[in-house]
């Protein structure tokens, strides 16, 4: 505690200035590099776009996460536009100055990869889980093959494939943005895990529920959407959030293919001669950021489980 706060130096231009002031932690490094940690190498003049995206994110998530949010019905419809608007804001074009995706970095990069992965892996995972139980052989074989292949390969391998191998398969001259490739790979990776988590939930649904739905004349998709999936997903919430958290933390692996996530920025900061040897402070700071996000997800999952509890076990 003393080291963290009381004896810590919060300002200074280098490590030496810090230790001259106090014997504890030297948080000045974080202060000086905060913008780098947040935005990566995103052009300074365009950083308002990142901030605006974050505001949009909060306004989109709020009605999705909380049932009591005002105007929830309309907000949910507008939320569909969020990925497109944000992608436009961050990448540019169509009136905005284009920003190369290799300038993305820091927490912003973590959020872009994490939220894209989380947002797309759930629906894809649900489809794969249903596909795996499908009576149509082609769909079933595809789903099983996809899930088992992706689960059988480490994420890092997939990321390497994304960063190098795809170029061999694409016709020469066709460039395919590296970040986009990473997003696709991370999403597919998480989808395979998601599919298995949801399949567990599906198998916990008693056969009578399917029979009751069938006997009413509900179509397959209505029965799934209205009866089976709400129950299966509710059972799977702990596993789903577990996968989300795993995915979110796995975004740090992109450092290996040269994208600068917070850890990458941290390493770069430590390479600066003025700040060498402050690895504890830098990594602690990054760890706190991840802990806050992941703990938030975990708490929300508990809240959701309580809210959806309709069993009233007596």
């Amino acid at each position, binding site marked *: 505690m003393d080291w963290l706060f009381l004896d810590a130096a919060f300002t200074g231009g280098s490590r030496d200035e810090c230790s001259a002031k106090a014997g504890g932690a030297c948080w000045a490094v974080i202060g000086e590099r905060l913008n780098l940690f947040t935005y990566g190498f995103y052009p300074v003049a365009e950083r308002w776009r990142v901030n605006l995206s974050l505001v949009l994110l909060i306004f989109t998530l709020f009605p999705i996460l909380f049932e009591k949010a005002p105007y929830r019905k309309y907000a949910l419809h507008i939320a569909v536009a969020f990925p497109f608007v944000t992608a436009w804001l961050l990448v540019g074009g169509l009136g905005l100055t284009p920003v190369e995706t290799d300038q993305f970095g820091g927490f912003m990069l973590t959020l872009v990869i994490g939220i894209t992965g989380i947002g797309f892996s759930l629906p894809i995972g649900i489809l794969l889980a249903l596909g795996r139980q499908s009576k149509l052989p082609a769909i079933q074989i595809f789903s099983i093959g996809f899930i088992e292949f992706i689960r059988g390969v480490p994420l890092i391998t997939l990321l390497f494939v994304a960063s190098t191998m795809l170029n061999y398969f694409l016709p020469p001259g066709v460039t395919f943005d590296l970040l986009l490739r990473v997003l696709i790979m991370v999403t597919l990776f998480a989808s395979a895990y998601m599919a298995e988590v949801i399949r567990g939930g599906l198998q916990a649904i008693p056969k009578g529920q399917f029979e009751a739905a069938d006997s*009413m004349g509900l179509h397959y998709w*209505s029965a799934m959407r209205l009866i089976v999936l709400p129950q299966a997903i509710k059972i799977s919430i702990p596993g789903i959030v577990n996968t989300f958290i795993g995915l979110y933390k796995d975004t740090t692996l992109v450092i290996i293919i040269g994208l600068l996530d917070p850890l990458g920025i941290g390493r770069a900061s430590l390479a600066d001669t003025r700040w060498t040897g402050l690895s504890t402070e830098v990594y602690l700071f990054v760890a706190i950021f991840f802990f806050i996000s992941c703990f938030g997800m975990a708490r929300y999952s508990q809240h959701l489980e309580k809210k959806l509890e*309709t069993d009233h*076990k007596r």
Partner: protein
Amino acid sequence: MTQKPESANEKTKSAAGNYAVTMRDVHKWYGKFHVLKNINLNVEVGEKIVICGPSGSGKSTLIRCINRLEEHQQGEIFVEGIELSHDIKNIEIIRREVGMVFQHFNLFPHLTVLENCTLAPIWVRKMPLAEANAIAMEYLERVKIPEQADKYPGQLSGGQQQRVAIARSLCMKPRILLFDEPTSALDPEMIKEVLDVMIQLASEGITMICVTHEMGFARTVGDRVIFMDNGEIIEENNPDDFFLNPQHERTKLFLSQILNH
């Protein structure tokens, strides 16, 4: 009293149209196990049929073939004149007109009682919400639990849950109701409340096919009792003759087993 099955050559689709359900030479196998053997059955519109028999005799399988929860491998089944085949359209039409009440209720635990009742009318019949709610409340009153409409199934007793399940089936305004041992999973003191609802329903002209061991119910409302054993229909008769004057040895044995205690 016994209805003789018509001979095979006379069977036409139009003849099946006069019956609520027609089964002709129906066979079903589970792997090598021959679960339904040469079932022939005509159910008149408005008729109340009670099916009984020892466990494993195929009686549940038989009624589950009527709404295609089980598939028959041989023979023909017509429901309201429509043939049950692989045609998914026909199956869906038939399921809309045939309600089913299960042994274990099979209510949807994540929906309230009212939502359980309105789900099929809204999504299958495309009924507006207000109308579906009104109909649901009407039937919940009929089964005497309108005050439970906003509770979840898990908060109700078994007898209440089964009455909700009956109301849920009725909300689709089916022409035929199938009951698959509706009281077998209930505590004795709750059986009466469910049977009372079923007896009241029987007086309203709906076609009912019930698999049940409630012999009192069979006598009160049954037009015909069918006894099954080993996948075959052994005997069918009106309730009085069935109970007082059973023809077949296996029927006598079965009746002595369920009535002598």
